[in-house]
């Protein structure tokens, strides 16, 4: 099949409502959004605490977080595989090759992004914001929520970036999801599989969905950065 034919077939799959293709898209969105959702609270709280408090080992944690941002997803997948495999310390949970394992992987991948964005946002915030909240009688929790609200555009950029990483990564999902049709096959693992089989149509169609999602994420970030710059 020529590239042109494959592209035409891809459009037919996309607009013909191909159940298998859209099922794969739904699995991708579900796994990425749940992973992101689970990582959000601990990621933002950790970033805030790292930004606002000085304690022994803080610098090492910041460096570790920054290192994790560039950690290869396939290595995260490998570590999780070893932990979740039947002989691994978490083997009894029977999570390997399940959506829950993929969600766990996405959570781990997204967590350092949220920590790093929150750390950067809070450290870069106007110091008068927190002082004003405290001076007006806010307790630690309200003052923290106020500061996070004041930096919401930067935090949202972190959330969007985290979603971008989760939806587009392939290494971790492939290793611990197993690429099982209808269960753990997501956009990226399906593209890898279909391409390796020489079946380009579904790969191209899924690639288009991924590109649209990535564009959407970047457009959203650009809009948010514009909003944040209006202050």
């Amino acid at each position: 099949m020529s590239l042109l034919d494959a592209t035409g077939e891809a459009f037919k799959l996309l607009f013909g409502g191909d159940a298998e293709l859209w099922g794969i898209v739904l699995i991708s969105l579900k796994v990425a959004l749940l992973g992101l959702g689970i990582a959000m609270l601990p990621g933002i709280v950790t970033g805030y605490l790292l930004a606002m408090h000085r304690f022994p080992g803080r610098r090492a944690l910041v460096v570790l977080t920054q290192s994790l941002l560039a950690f290869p997803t396939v290595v995260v997948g490998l570590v999780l595989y070893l932990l979740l495999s039947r002989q691994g310390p978490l083997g009894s949970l029977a999570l390997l090759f399940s959506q829950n394992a993929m969600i766990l992987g996405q959570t781990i991948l997204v967590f350092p992004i949220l920590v790093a964005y929150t750390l950067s946002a809070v450290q870069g915030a106007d110091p008068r914001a927190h002082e004003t909240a405290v001076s007006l009688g806010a307790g630690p929790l309200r003052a923290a929520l106020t500061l996070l609200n004041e930096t919401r555009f930067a935090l949202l950029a972190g959330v969007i970036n985290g979603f971008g990483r989760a939806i587009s990564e392939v290494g971790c999902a492939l290793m611990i999801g197993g690429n099982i049709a209808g269960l753990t096959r997501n956009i990226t693992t399906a593209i890898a599989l279909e391409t390796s089989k020489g079946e380009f149509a579904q790969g191209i169609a899924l690639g288009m969905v991924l590109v649209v999602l990535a564009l959407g994420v970047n457009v959203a970030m650009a809009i948010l950065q514009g909003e944040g710059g209006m202050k």
Partner: protein
Amino acid sequence: MSALLKLDRLRKSYGQRRLLDLERLEIEAGHAYVVTGGNGSGKTTLLRILAGLEPGEAEGLKFEGRSIANGEAHREIVYVHQHPYLFHTSVAGNIAYGLKARGVAAAERQRLVEAAIAWAGVGHLRRLAPHKLSGGEKQRVALARAKVLGPRLYLLDEPTANLDGDGRRQTIDLVQELARGGAGVVIACHDRELIELPGMRRFHLENGRLLEV
């Protein structure tokens, strides 16, 4: 009259440089104090220490016997920055902030916010976002946001700095009203008009020492 705030032997240093070296300071309710001094003399640092926003080595820093450093009196004292920070919400939302933090019920909150808006003359600005306000308007909103809480002590850092014309005039009028309102008011400033307001107790900060003038 017993003092609202008592400070004994305060030291504050940055590296080798000793910025503040105060023996004693008492702030009484119903009085206004102005602290003058050159740039970098420590006026702002002193106010921030009194507000509990910055640590200092003090033998005693109490608000009616309660420790300021431990935050035991933080709802009695409001500090207003030289360039006030307004939260990214409306003017009315800013003025309501401290009331929400204190758990004031919505109806009462609205009544108090309206009164504070009227006091500061910012009714026409109530729905505006802070970045649309002038410096003088921001200062008036910040004063209203402080007053609505009914604090016992106001700490105002250069309230008229960088203001001119109507903005400065209106701010001075509001500060005068605060000073007449029964609370203690401490103002760090260079503004001659504020310094020379009648009834003002004047201190000068020089070489870390606070001298009554």
